[in-house]
């Protein structure tokens, strides 16, 4: 079998992998992009519109993939890397399609998975049909198939984030503003329905987020209740009855809703299988731990293996693309010094 030779192999064809591939190609590196699915785009394909400006998510994916096509950057779809081993300073990668690839550097852009809330039974996911995740809501908004006429919908923040009970201590960063965005979309879809966000904290940290929050309050009349959902049950009319603590009023609260949206958090995607000699350090939240989070955010504990995007922790699309471009500089620097 012939061995394919590249300078850099990028694993993961989401926005991070695509952005990094284009940058590396521009700087003259011979690069290949590997994606496990049938098409490029990764998790962003699951989104309908993105915060804070309601831009169609497909626009971002299309723009990045058009660049790849224009530059004729090789892409291997439906290909997963099953094993990586080191070989005199280079890396040998084996794929599920039987290919063997030799590369000087590997850039991990494997991204994230969303938290599966069926383990948190008290929220009723997988038990009551009107409890769904934020990702499922995106699909329904995209295809216009939510199919209910609700009087009241609640969105629960921090599901699978900041929760010791499910061993997820980290903040997933994007769910706060995602919830505000989805609340506005739901209100535009159902103008007569009451849309409520149940939050612990609202972390509107980036440009345009706080403005979106104000808009949600003033223009769209989204209601915000500070409290954590403790339990969701059905009443005799088959409505969802929520029990929460209204921490601002300092009282327990009971309310009925027609639909419950769980803002699921991000968790690390599984990495390819590495040979024993390769050590990739991970942080406590399961994502890759960069060599230096301030100065070398894309360098891992293994020389020649780099990370970008949500592989090293939750990020927005904007942060992911910036991080991918920064990673391509780190890779180039390594190749030049080699």
């Amino acid at each position: 079998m012939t061995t394919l030779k590249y300078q850099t192999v990028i694993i993961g064809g989401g926005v991070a992998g695509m952005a990094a591939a284009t940058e590396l190609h521009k700087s003259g590196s011979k690069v290949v992009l590997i994606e496990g699915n049938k098409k490029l785009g990764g998790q962003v394909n699951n989104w309908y519109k993105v915060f804070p400006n309601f831009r169609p998510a497909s626009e971002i994916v299309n723009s990045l993939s058009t660049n790849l096509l224009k530059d004729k950057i090789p892409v291997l779809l439906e290909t997963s890397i099953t094993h990586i081993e080191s070989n005199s300073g280079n890396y040998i990668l084996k794929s599920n399609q039987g290919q063997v690839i030799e590369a000087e550097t590997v850039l991990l852009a494997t991204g994230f998975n969303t938290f599966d809330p069926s383990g948190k039974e008290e929220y009723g996911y997988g038990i009551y049909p009107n409890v769904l995740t934020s990702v499922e809501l995106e699909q329904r908004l995209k295809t216009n198939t939510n199919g209910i006429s609700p009087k009241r919908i609640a969105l629960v923040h921090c599901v699978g984030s900041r929760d010791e009970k499910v061993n997820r201590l980290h903040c997933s960063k994007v769910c706060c503003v995602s919830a505000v965005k989805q609340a506005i979309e739901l209100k535009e879809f159902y103008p007569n329905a009451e849309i409520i966000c149940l939050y612990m904290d609202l972390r509107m940290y980036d440009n345009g987020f706080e403005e979106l929050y104000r808009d949600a309050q003033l223009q769209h009349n989204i209601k915000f209740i500070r409290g954590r959902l403790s339990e969701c049950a059905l009443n005799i009319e088959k409505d969802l009855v929520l029990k929460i603590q209204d921490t601002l009023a300092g009282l327990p609260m009971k309310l009925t809703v027609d639909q419950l949206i769980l803002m699921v958090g991000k968790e690390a995607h599984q990495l390819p299988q590495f040979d024993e000699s390769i050590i990739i350090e991970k942080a406590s939240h399961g994502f890759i731990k960069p060599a230096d989070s301030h100065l070398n955010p894309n360098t891992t504990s293994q020389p020649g293996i780099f990370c970008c995007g949500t592989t090293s922790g939750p990020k927005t699309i904007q942060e992911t693309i910036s991080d991918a471009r920064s990673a391509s500089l780190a890779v180039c620097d390594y190749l030049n010094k080699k």
Partner: protein
Amino acid sequence: MSKFGFKLTPSGTINYDQGDFRLAEFIDQHEPSSRLCISCGACSATCTGGAFAKLEMHKIHLFIKRGMSDNVKTQIQNCMYCGKCQLVCPRGVNNRNVIRLILTHFKI
């Protein structure tokens, strides 16, 4: 017959489905800036009346939105109409008009 001193205590839960939202709707309609309150408490901290009696403007906003009008009626009578709650509000809520509307609603 012996008296044991048992009595019924009212529920301490906010029943959002059965709240009295007439005041909430009235204020929302005439002063939409009230939607912007985030319960930071700046108004209550600076309150002239609140220094002497039970009056927390951020709680009043909250009680209105939770349909708990009785609590609003009791507290608002301690207001001295100085307007400092409006001066300090970081969200730009027109508190003076909210208070005026509460007084109008309750015909105080």
